């Protein structure tokens, strides 16, 4: 028997079955990375793959794997299953960051995908058609730009000839060293996979707030006729009606009250919860957020101090 220590795990390899060095190294590498690959399940059916980004429970997957789901669960290779919160999501990049309550997860090694070369070996690990932990091999077929739907922008991509299927989405694309160089995202009929380069994901995660920014309000979108003070003319306006203000939150400390209508945040009109969420996400470097609030027939400017205790890890 040939046995190899990998991260305190012993892989037993029956002698004679794996006789060539390439196969042996592939098996070892996959043994090392495997525990970092997770299955992401959402309520109802469907789901995909993901991988442990940080040992503190941060999981990266595709946005489209979790899109529209409130409850998502993450299943580890060792059988553990965790409920996961969607910490952040970016439809344009097709990325989502999940968080589970754990501190001991095996984080995947992430490499700089900007150095990827056409022809390099890559391995996709995922759960095609729900079949768990399937590994496929190929090479980097191309690197370049693809248009991002509806945005007019382009995003970098890695194309590969690894064989993938639905269920691979969100899973890691590994290089020969077993480090993540991409996140399998789009699948074109079997022999063409498009992955989001890992450096794009790393930049995205690095730009996210280290702490959740929250106002501490419950809102409902409203539309009403607003009498403009200068022109004395009415204009149809949309905003967010505060239907709840939590105690001891930035909102309560700034004096926001139930019945107030937020018209703009940080200078941007706020028409729905998404917009407010975006503004909060974009505003993490500034601690102060300027709100335009309609109260008692007039528009007031309210400065909200977003920093300060307590930090609560829930969305607005």
């Amino acid at each position: 028997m040939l046995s190899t220590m990998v991260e305190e795990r012993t892989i037993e390899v029956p002698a004679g079955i794996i006789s060539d060095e390439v196969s042996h190294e592939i098996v070892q590498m996959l043994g090392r990375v495997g525990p970092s690959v997770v299955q992401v399940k959402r309520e109802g059916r469907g789901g995909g793959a993901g991988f442990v980004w940080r040992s503190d429970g941060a999981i990266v997957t595709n946005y489209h794997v979790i899109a529209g789901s409130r409850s998502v669960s993450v299943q580890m290779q060792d059988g553990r299953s965790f409920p996961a919160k969607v910490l952040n999501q970016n439809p344009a990049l097709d990325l989502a960051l999940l968080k589970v309550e754990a501190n001991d997860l095996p984080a995947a090694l992430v490499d700089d995908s900007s150095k990827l070369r056409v022809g390099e070996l890559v391995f996709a690990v995922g759960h095609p058609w729900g079949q768990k932990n399937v590994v496929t091999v190929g090479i980097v077929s191309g690197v370049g730009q693809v248009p991002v739907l509806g945005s007019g922008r382009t995003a970098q991509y890695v194309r590969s000839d690894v064989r993938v299927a639905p269920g691979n989405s969100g899973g890691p694309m590994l290089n020969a060293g077993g480090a993540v160089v991409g996140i399998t995202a789009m699948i074109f009929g079997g022999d063409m996979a498009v992955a989001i380069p890992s450096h794009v994901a790393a930049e995205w995660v690095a730009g996210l707030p280290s702490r959740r920014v929250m106002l501490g309000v419950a809102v409902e979108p409203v539309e009403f006729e607003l009498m403009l003070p200068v022109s004395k003319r009415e204009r149809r306006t949309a905003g967010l009606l505060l239907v709840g203000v939590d105690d001891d939150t930035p909102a309560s400390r700034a004096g926001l009250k139930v019945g107030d209508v937020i018209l703009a945040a940080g200078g941007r009109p706020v028409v729905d919860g998404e917009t407010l969420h975006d503004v909060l996400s974009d505003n993490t470097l500034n601690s102060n957020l300027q709100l335009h609030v309609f109260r008692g027939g007039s528009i007031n400017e309210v400065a909200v101090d977003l920093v300060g205790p307590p930090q609560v890890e829930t969305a607005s």
Partner: protein
Amino acid sequence: MDNSNGNAGILSSLSNQLADAVERIGPALVTVYGRQRLPSSGVVYKQGLVLTAEHAIEREEDLSIATHDGRKLTAQFVGRDPSSDLAVLRVQDLNVEPAQSSGEPRVGQLVLAVARPSEDGPMASQGIVSAVGGPVRTGRGGMLEKYIRTDATPYPGFSGGPLIDTTGAVLGILTTGLAGGVALAVPTSIAWRVADTLTAHGRIKRGYLGISSQPVYLPEAQRAGREQETGLMLVRVDKDTPAEQGGLLLGDILVALDSQPVNDVDDLQALLNGDRVGNPVPIEVIRGGQVQTLTVTIGQRD
């Protein structure tokens, strides 16, 4: 997490070698603009000459190529050979080092299909040599003496690009135009020779007899001791043609050319290749129950 993957093992070496191969062939890979739809690929096989897929050259004027360093250059049509799906273009001031040719392909060896279908840089897919076969009828009026079959994925725009080995040397020219979408490569030994002929003459010479024929079954009594079961009965012999001048007659059953058996029209087409043009060759026919050998000087098909 264990970060120690620095001690590059054989897997990393293999990965690097594959990427090195793509990098090495890269400069010799060009984008070929010769059809309405998406461009195709080509490879610089000799100084100033680009080998590409014949089926991707839909016009013989207004051709251009794009190089690895982003230059877009006008290309002149040199010649085409539909039976091997190869065409040659000449490009002034190309100044690109021609690709290296590899040795004989071996079944099972690792290969890369490489191409430059767009400005996004080279593209590649990997596989192995699945089979080396031939001769095969190409369905375009010709025979290919030898072909390489691979399981590497031919992406759109890959026709005309090379199939390379892990050193970046060219094993063949990839095309999906010969076998109904299946990725075949014309081996370098044939492709380079065809390209040289196209460069010298603009086309591939094909032999010509000047007959119409029909395959017939040979009853054992009429085989005159031969083993083959079929031959070609001449149903027309055109005037002032090599066949007529060589003495072939209507009703003769052609059974061999240059000592090679002729069972059907494909056999005959394969034997009427450019090498025999202009040469007197023995042709065996069954006439009146006897085998007769005539000498015919093979003409050239226009």
